[in-house]
């Protein structure tokens, strides 16, 4: 069982400390954590720091794994003009640092992931011919094929229609439960966050504002102060909280 905890974590962009002092409770196997905050709040920077792509103060504590590929990061930018098929691009993610040979086991895993994401029909299409939504699904497959224990997904649903958003978030929630992964998803849709997340982490101006149960974190005060909006939190008939926006706060 893997666990992740951030202790006073910060991240440098160049010489500037862009994210600072992020401390979370221990995030556990099977949890889906929504990372929310306005544009340029530091969500992507925090993900890159956790992955080790950026340097910074503080500690990223990993428990229960010695796998050097334990963390897989799905970047926000999924555009690519390489002359590769979708299948080759997923294989590429799987084979990094390994020999040229491709085993049946590698290919079977790719087939399974493509089937789970329902993208088999585009398997041998060129990357450059994909729509934005298809690229995001391929990017998710590339992250999953590395069989991570912790997955950081930077706005994986931003280019997807509502049906696919729900399908992907539902799929990731099931993957987290089934494979004991910790999944962190940067997301702007607060209602999707409320529906799927076990925890919500709020970033504002490079600092963590809150991290905890969705109903404790997503409050009217937080929405006004972080997002500068007037909103209500209302319960639906299924006892889920929903954000209803009334307008911007000035």
């Amino acid at each position: 069982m893997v666990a992740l905890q951030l202790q006073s974590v910060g991240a440098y962009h160049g010489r500037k400390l862009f994210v600072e002092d992020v401390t979370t409770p221990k995030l556990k196997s099977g949890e889906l954590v929504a990372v929310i905050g306005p544009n340029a709040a530091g969500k992507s920077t925090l993900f890159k720091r956790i992955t080790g792509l950026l340097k910074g103060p503080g500690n990223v504590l990993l428990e229960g794994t010695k796998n050097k590929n334990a963390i897989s990061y799905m970047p926000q930018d999924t555009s690519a003009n390489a002359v590769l098929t979708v299948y080759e691009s997923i294989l590429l993610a799987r084979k990094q640092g390994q020999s040229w040979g491709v085993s049946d086991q590698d290919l079977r895993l790719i087939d399974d992931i493509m089937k789970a994401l329902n993208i088999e029909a585009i398997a041998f299409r060129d990357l450059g011919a994909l729509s934005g939504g298809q690229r995001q699904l391929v990017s998710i497959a590339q992250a999953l094929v590395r069989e991570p224990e912790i997955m950081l997904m930077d706005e994986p649903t931003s280019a997807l229609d509502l049906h696919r958003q729900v399908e992907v978030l539902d799929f990731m929630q099931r993957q987290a439960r089934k494979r004991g992964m910790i999944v962190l998803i940067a997301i702007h849709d607060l209602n999707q966050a409320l529906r799927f997340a076990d925890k919500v982490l709020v970033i504002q101006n490079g600092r963590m504002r809150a991290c905890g149960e969705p109903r404790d974190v997503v409050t009217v005060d937080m929405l006004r102060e972080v997002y500068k909006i007037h909103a209500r939190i209302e319960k639906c008939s299924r006892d889920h909280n929903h954000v209803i926006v009334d307008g911007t706060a000035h």
Partner: protein
Amino acid sequence: MAEIAVVPIEAEAGRARYRALARRKLMILFAMTAALCLSFAIDLAWGPARYDLDEVVAALLDPDSVSAQIRAVVWDIRMPVAIMAIVVGASLSVAGAQMQTILANPLASPFTLGISAAASFGAALAIVTSVPILPVAAGLLVPVNAFIMALVATLFIHFISQARGVSVQTVVLLGIALVFTFNAALAFLQYLASEQALSAVVFWTMGSLTKATWPKIWITLAVLLFALPLFARHAWALTAIRLGEDKAASFGVNVRRIRLETMLVISLLSAVPVSFVGTIGFVGLVGPHIARMILGEDQRFFLPGSILSGALLLSVTSIVSKSIIPGVVFPIGIITALVGVPFFFSLILSNRSRAW
């Protein structure tokens, strides 16, 4: 996702189709190798002095059975040129392929980034002024000057590309600026040159395989053989870099280190052949594009594909350069583009979606 999954596909269909595609690419590589062998054989058999094919084969297999003249023509004149065409074509094409890969730009090549122009300037400096950049024997003055200038240009591009905040587009623009700078410096030297020196400079800049000698071949081949294992070791990582820096980094690729290593090796791979045979512009740009269009950008196929397409292009050009006017061997730099452009156009027009 419902609209994507139009037809349910068997679970093993992806695997089987991938294996079939990989086999097809291997067959293409075998076909290119066979074409290269054929081209090499014709290059040896063809020339101003006309010999029967059996005489050429005899000269190759049993040199003592043919006259000294045939032996000298086949082994001392045609063989170095034919091998140099293959080695130089392969080197420039691989250098161009990896430049295009790490700079994410289809225009990158030793020619377009100013490396060939720098080499030409170095060579002209030696021919016109006899000024050595390094103290070397007079016979080595031209190639050594050309090599040093080519290396300086490549390292300049490399260090600029390492600076913080410099995009790959900026690097390509700087390379183009280098082309103009060195061309201006070359024109300045040509303006000052004596008539004899001027004609030597012009001939050098046209690129010619007739300058090939066995030591030059061994040196160029050694650099190529040094470079290939390094590129092969990083095949997955180099392919990942084509998906973008962030994506490659997310796969665990140390993009900065691979760029540094690759650029340093490219600098040798482009500077050495250019310093020996002069400016041959087209191969480094188009060789990789041909390989990309036929085989895609998985470096396990793209790398050998670039080697073969560059080698084949220059080998065929070597034959054409001897065939236009009987008895005259044209400088290969002139002929390369004339041979390659029609073929390249036909590939682009038949394969537009996979051009870049």
